[in-house]
Structures are given as structure tokens and as C-alpha cells.
């Protein structure tokens, strides 16, 4: 295995997107009842919205950041 060409780990700026979902740890942002959406208090619908947010961030990293990680 010593004959392999050296492969360097390359950081991509896109990978910073993986930190965006950490916003869901900031409870004052969503720890309230109003406004309600479809009867769901803010606390619940806001956290449901974090699911697609996480998916978008990971998907963009998958598509944009190249493979050599």
C-alpha cells in the first residue's frame, strides 16, 4: 500500500454548513406557545422545521464539497 499517490484531506467551506443545525440547541428561539400553526405551538412546529433545515445542509455538503474528505 506504500505505492499510493498521496491524497490530502481538503476542507471545503461548504462543510461549515454542517454546523447550521446546531441552531436547534438555542431554546429561547422557539420555547413559546404563540404563534400556533395548524394548532401546533411554536415550540413544536419550529422544531419540525429544523428537520428539513438539517437535510438541506447535509445535502448541499454532499453535492458541493467533493469527495476527498
Amino acid at each position, binding site marked *: 500500500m506504500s505505492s*499510493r499517490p498521496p491524497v490530502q484531506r481538503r476542507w471545503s467551506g461548504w462543510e461549515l454548513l*454542517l*454546523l447550521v*443545525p446546531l441552531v436547534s*440547541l438555542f*431554546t429561547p428561539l422557539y420555547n413559546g406557545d404563540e404563534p*400556533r400553526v395548524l*394548532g401546533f405551538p411554536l*415550540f413544536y412546529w419550529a422544531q419540525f422545521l429544523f428537520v428539513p433545515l438539517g437535510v438541506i445542509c447535509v445535502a448541499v455538503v454532499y453535492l458541493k464539497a467533493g469527495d476527498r474528505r
Partner: protein
Amino acid sequence: MTVRWTELVVFAALFVLVTALGFYAARWQRGGTLDHLDEWGLGGRRFGSWVTWFLIGGDLYTAYTFVAVPALIFGAGAMGFFALPYTVLVYPLVFLPLLRLWSVSRVHGYVTPADFVQGRYGSATLALLVAVTGIVATMPYIALQLAGLEAVLRTMGLNGGGLAGHAPLFIAFVILALYTYQSGLRAPALIAFVKDGLIYLVIIAAVIILPAKLGGWGSIFDAANAKFTATKTPADGILLGPNNQLQYVTLALGSALALFLYPHAVTGALASRSRTVIKRNMVALPAYSLVLGLLALLGYAAIAAHTKPIVNAATGRADSNTVIPMLFEGQFPSWFAGIAFAAIGIGALVPAAIMSIAAANLWTRNIYKAYLHRDATTEQECRQAKIASLVVKFGAVALIVLIDPQYSIDLQLIGGVIILQTLPMVAIALYTRWFHIWGLVAGWVVGMGWGLTLLYGIPNPASGKQHFGGSALALNKLSFLGWHPFAGSQLQIYVGFVALIGNLVIAVLVTIVLRQLRVFNGTDQTTPPDYLEDEGSPNLKPVAGMLR
């Protein structure tokens, strides 16, 4: 209590179906030999995107999800919703490290996370610690699956007292043990299709029909709010209180960091064919998180529907795990309740099978082969793993028979605290070898010791327990050799998080000293490019089953 025959017949029919699938799985996508851990323990290491999605989804979103999380919401409210941010955070956090683990494992043929640690540090001691921690943390997790299965069986009327009351659970588990023994990881992979299909069907029906019957989501939340306002405990409610927000956040983050340290999660990932399969799944798996969030809210629906948990005849206490089964029993026709019970029951079998396989792989690779039988052949390894999978399962049955299933969620929280202590050895080691072997060992000892001591000291006023009453630590109880830095603070924090910080601090300090003294730090079998290899590379170690 009388037996509910319609439900039982539907449940039994679906159980027979998955049993047949379990035995058939031995022949599905079969490689050249089943007598190799790559085949029995990792399904031939060639699952594509779809199979992996069902397998990991079936693996991570367990009976715990379907039974215990809604039960927590039913009992305590918003705190139980931590499961949603937990599963939101996990994929972005593990995306990059998991790819590195996959690559290095394929280059060197690693089957378990402890194999990787052995290769990375050349230290059997370190690998042993990771393996033992993994097995100990997995046992209560399997027991939790059993508690879910038993809740369903008891709801259907199989609610006997004493030891005989556990007989239905025992029978279901013997069957599971037999097909796992024969088919290995292929059995849960195939059954996961049925399990996840049923779960999606049940949850979609529940989310549409229940609010319609109970006056809409708005009145469901209002009913829950009224219940929590009426209780004296300030800690419950449909929103977080002033003291439990830090606990909510640290529990979500700690659980997210812990998830892919569990051996069964690693097993699911290593069984996939390529890095692309893992990447796609990190994008697609959150579909289950939506389902999880909706399921969790059924705990509130149960409040609105005035659901009462049934009394477990073996313990004489109300079993909160039966809240969701009883909700379905009360609100849906019998045949549909039977389908829901089967979804939960099969939802317990899939992860239980994968967990027992993962624990068996650890035992075989990192204890049996490393210490007891160094020159075991691959056939002997495989036979050993099959037997170990049986032992692990019956150990979990013993746990559930001897301990009140009410505590299953606490047991699992203890497991989470324990497994989190392997983060520096496994996850950080994927990026750097800066930590010293003995620094990691010292950190592990402190993290485990501190974590368990803190857990021991937490009472649970609700259940009247003095010790191991949960994982939320009031900050004023935190002391460093008598010094209370947060005296007077009622803020709560997740014990696992505190223990991990202690672990890391000690690991860093000991590492700095040992590096100054230039103490030998083992040999690294891996090279930087190993962490980047993908499917098709000539540097991957051939998989046994492909050599036909």
C-alpha cells in the same frame, strides 16, 4: 383481563410473516460463505442505498421511539421532545466522521469500532475498553426493545403475573434468536422493510385520524396543557421551564454524539457498499425523524383521549410503556390496533437483532480473538459470534424479567452516559492520534466513574426511587472534591455531558504529561489515505463472501 383476539390474530399473522422472512434471509443476496463475520455480521458489506436506509432506519428508530418517547411526553411533556432535536443534530454531526470510519474499516477489514481503535493505537487494552463499554451499553438498549414488545403483548391481554407472565416475550425472543443465529444481519435487513412499511402506515393513519377524532391538534395541546397545569410538579408542561432547558439541549446533543458510538449503529453503517450509500442516507434518514416527532406527540393525543396505562401484572404497577398501545386500542378498530401492535413489536425485533449481532461481533473480535483464542479461524470466529448473539439476547431477557420495565428508559439513559465516554477513543481518533493511549484510558475511567456516581445520586420523586432516578443533574449538586461551583442553581444538565467533559479534561492533562515524558504511544496501522478510500479502490480489503 381478557385476551383481545382480533388484535392477537393480526399480530401473530404479521409475526409469522417476519419469522419466515428471517429464516429466508440466509439465502438473500448470499455470498460464497456464511462462515465469515463479513457475511454473518455485516451482511456481505454490500448493502445499497435502499437496503441501508431501511436497515439503519429500522436500527436507530426503535421500539424506544414508538413506546418510551411518547410515554415520556405523556408523563412529563415538552422534555420528552428532545428526541426531535437529537435526531436533527445527529446526521450533520456524524456525516464526515462516519465516512472516514467506513473507509478505514474497508481498507483494513475492521468489523467493530474496537477493531478500529486496535488498529489506530495498536493497543489491545484500549480496544478492550471500547468493546466492553459497547457491550454493557447495548444490553439495556436491547432490554428496552423487549420492554416495548412486552408492553404490546400485555396490552393484547397476555398480561400474566409472575415469571410465567413473561412467557410470551420469551417465546417471541427464542424465535428471534434462532433466525438471527442462522441468517445474521440479513435477517433484520429484510424484516426492516416490513417494519418500516408498517410504521409509516400506522403513523400516517394516526396523524390524520386522531386529531380528527379529538378535535384537532390545537385542542390536543390544550388538553395536555390543562393536565400539566393541574399537577403540582413545576418540571412538566407543554413548554420547557426555566430549569430544564439546559438539560433539554445537553441531552439532545449528548444523545446525538452518542448514537453512532453505539456498536449497532456502526454495524449498520459498515454493512453499506460505499461512501455514496452513506452520504445519501445521511440526507434521507431524517425522514424517520419527522415520523419520530409525530409519534412522540401521540403522547399528548393519549392525554386528550384520557388513555390509561394498564397495570403490569408482573410488577403490580401501571406500565407507562402501554400508553401508546392503549391509545390505539381505544381509538381504532381492533384489526388496525393489531397492525399498530405488530408495527411496534416488529419495531422491537429489528433493532434487538442488530444490537445482539453488534455486541456479538465485539465479543468475538475484541475479547475472544484478542485474548482467549488468538489463532481462531474465520469459521471459529463466526461460530463464536453466533453463540454470543444468543447469550446477549438472553442476558437482555433476564434484565427485563428481573427489573421493572418502567425503568427501561432510565436504563437506556445510563447506557447513553456510558457509551458517550468512548467518544475520544473512537470519534476523535478518526481525526487525530494526538491523545495518548493512557490519557484516553484515564479519561475513560474518570468519565465512567463520575458519570455513574452522579447517576447513582439522582433520586426520582415521582417513582419514589432513591438512586438512578434519571439523567438530569441539578447544577447545585455538582461538586469537585467538595467545591460547589454552581451552589444554589436549580438548572439541570445531562449527566453524560458532564461526564464527557470530565473525561476530556483528564485525557488532555494526562496526554500532555505523557507526551512530555515521551512515553511510547503504540503503533498506528492506518495511514492518512486509508480514511478516504471508496468502493472500487484496489486498496480495499476483499470481502470474504465475494470470493466465490
